[in-house]
């Protein structure tokens, strides 16, 4: 982590998992830029609450806005060992969440790459699994698809449900293979989730560039 800036809290070296991502050279410019943004969002307070996210105009068009905001407050993502939702997050937590979207570095070895990938997928998994029970059940999956299609108000709920059911069955057949008529597939566990994402190159896709320090969108 680069040199400390005035007003930027030092990111402490916590337990090992924290350093695995954060220690990967979040440059000081990026921290400064994010801090500026944090101050904008929080209206110069020290913490952000859920309501502060409403002030971002472009976020309104996003169909999964609820899940995204929720993810910021999800304690599992904030690396605290507890469950549930935090009420407010400070800058350090904000940075922690942002660190999930780091681009990959050239000099990573296999093991680091694998851990990197797992971290990102874990973040996604938590977004899908809203009741925090470690499994994505059919109802949760249906919920995800409904949200994705929520931008089209005239669509029936049936469509979303059918798609989700079909996807779930496909997931079951990938993860478990042939199933007898009596077996019940409880839900997608994290291992199954990893299997499903094998085809998609998550390390390269899930990143956001915040190199550009000049353009900061305005809030209300």
């Amino acid at each position, binding site marked *: 982590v680069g040199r400390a800036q005035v007003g930027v809290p030092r990111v402490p070296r916590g337990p090992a998992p924290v350093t695995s991502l954060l220690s990967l050279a979040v440059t000081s410019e990026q921290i400064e830029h994010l801090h500026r943004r944090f101050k904008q969002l929080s209206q110069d307070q020290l913490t952000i609450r859920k309501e502060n996210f409403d002030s971002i105009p472009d976020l309104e068009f996003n169909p999964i806005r609820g899940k995204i905001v929720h993810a910021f407050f999800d304690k599992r993502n904030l690396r605290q060992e507890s469950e549930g939702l935090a009420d407010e997050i400070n800058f350090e937590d904000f940075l922690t969440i*942002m660190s999930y979207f780091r681009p990959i570095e050239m000099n990573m070895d296999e093991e680091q790459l694998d851990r990197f990938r797992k971290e990102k997928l874990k973040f996604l998994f938590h977004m899908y699994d809203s009741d925090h029970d470690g499994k994505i059940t059919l109802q949760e999956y249906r919920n995800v698809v409904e949200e994705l299609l929520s931008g089209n108000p005239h669509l029936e709920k049936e469509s979303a449900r059918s798609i989700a059911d079909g996807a779930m069955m496909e997931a079951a057949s990938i993860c478990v293979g042939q*199933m007898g008529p009596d077996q019940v597939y409880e839900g997608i566990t994290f291992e199954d989730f990893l299997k499903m994402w094998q085809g998609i190159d998550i390390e390269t896709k899930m990143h*956001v560039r915040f190199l550009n320090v000049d353009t900061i969108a305005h809030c209300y």
Partner: protein
Amino acid sequence: IPSVSSIVPESCLLIVVGLLVGGLIKGVGEKPPILKSDIFFLFLLPPIILDAGYFLPLRPFTENLGTILIFAVVGTLWNAFFLGGLMYAVCQLGGPGLNHIGLLANLLFGSIISAVDPVAVLAVFEEIHINELLHILVFGESLLNDAVTVVLYHLFEEFANFEQVTILDIILGFLSFFVVSLGGVLVGVIYGVIAAFTSRFTSHIRVIEPLFVFLYSYMAYLSAELFHLSGIMALIAAGVVMRPYVEANISHKSHTTIKYFLKMWSSVSETLIFIFLGVSTVAGHHYWNWTFVISTLFFCLIARVLGVLVLTWFINKFRIVKLTPKDQFIIAYGGLRGAIAFSLGYLLDYKHFGMRDMFLTAIITVIFFTVFVQGMTIRPLVDLLAVKKKQETKRSINEEIHTQFLDHLLTGIEDICGHYGHHHWKDKLNRFNKKYVKKCLIAGERSKEPQLIAFYHKMEMKQAIELVESGGIGKIPSAVSTVSIQNINPQTLPLERVLPALSKDKEEEIRKILRTNLQKTRQRLRSYNRHTLVADPYEEAWNQMLLRRQKARQLEQKMNNYLTVPAHRVDSPTMSRARIGSDPLAYEPKEDSENLPIITIDPASPQSPESVDLMSEEPKGCSGLPPSPEEDEEGLVMRVKEPSSPGTDDVFTPGTSDSPSNQRMLRCLSDPGPRPEPEEGEPFIPKGQ
């Protein structure tokens, strides 16, 4: 022993064939035909480019657009000037034979030979199946450098006539690059939009839909070439722009037609081009100058390698996924030259360029070298360097959901960061597209269909077609598992579906249909008797029906795995049929329902027709039992699965409407029988009759 085709790429073989043919013709004494430039540019090149543009994988292309543009523009410029300059130096030092070739001529030569050729790249890269990124980089570069080539070629050709070249001319030339490339793209976009708009109205004349696609694209190409704009870019732009809208509007058959016609034409063109290259080599006048040719070859390679190295170093500063040295090697090695260079050289005027023959010889040598040597060795090199190959993944619905989810997530994070990034603009474009453009260009209801649903429909269609084609018996595609809805949601009660209420006259209509059909049944059933040895006219149909039932049972099991998306209106017959077939609840007796008698009948039972009223009644109430259409949901299914089967028994066809509500009603309604006034609760065939 490896076969010839695994060592030698197809393009090389075709050139050899061309050489043989040319030699044959010459040996006979005739003059072999040469690849004339207008034939090439007007007829042979457009199909290949249209094929490439229409089926361009848009996502990787746009993701790497910056890289591709830098390679195409800067790389080609560098190649042209480096090569031209060095060749000028060589000519000056090369002795009397070469001294007279001026700087401009050399620069022109450099610009002709420096462009990577899309035809050659396609021909070679298709066979080696490297990963998508490298493929799109080299291929995209070969497509987009056409603008640069056109500008440079015309520029130097013009300048060769001037006595003096002023700074103003150079600046104008530089500006003309933008005009040519952007103008070409604009022409393409305009024609693409017109084509998409036209396809909106073709729902009644499906047959000529493919014609519009081909016609408008070709017109885009011609219009651009007319104004000396970049025809290739126009063609690509037209194909890319029109594709999503046209595909939403046209029928499935038209889509297939377009696909196969494009593939056919581009294959034929490619073959002809390479053969002609071979023939032209034999036929042309050659002037071989060792110095010139060898140094051309040498400098071409060096220019390419240097260019790729320097540009990659520059590009990697901005890329997330950096290009490794292996990638760079493949990109440099994949810079093949081809027929475009030859045709451009052929176009040169003898008057101004007396050394045209020497140029042509050098061009052909470079083409041969790149296609033969580089084309043949790239495959073992790819294996040797263990370059990542293309992954054959089928798009699944899960991946689609995840990709869309990820897109929205990244857009959201970008918005939170306040960063106007890649995803932000893509999302804005998508929203604009959905709100305004799609409404204009896509006909009817499809304009509002979200991408996920469209994708799901497409997949279902594909699976349904696959199933029908495989006959439903025997080979089960391995991707199909036995996972059914019961496995993931065991609490799904069959009773979830509520029967929609039907109006009185609809009910009456249904009863009438049943009555008329059932009357026929009675007659036919009576005539069936397995003890009679007389060949029964209906027996054939009966046996067919039995076979179909058997097939249907197996089909039903397969179809149980596929859920269909119920549309919010009556959709095409195929969809509703597929839905009926896949409705897993259609075959289960409703144990708990009181008012809904289920009748099952087994016409295959070895009993006399009199007691064919084998049925299981529900204990309460009504006991109507129309034997055939209701019980034979299988019959219903079979009929719809083979809509044109020859021995269709129209006993088992329910007649008019296909809508789901009707089918369900048919399943559950009791038909009072062939009497004038419908009366509930009357058995159709009284027992003991």
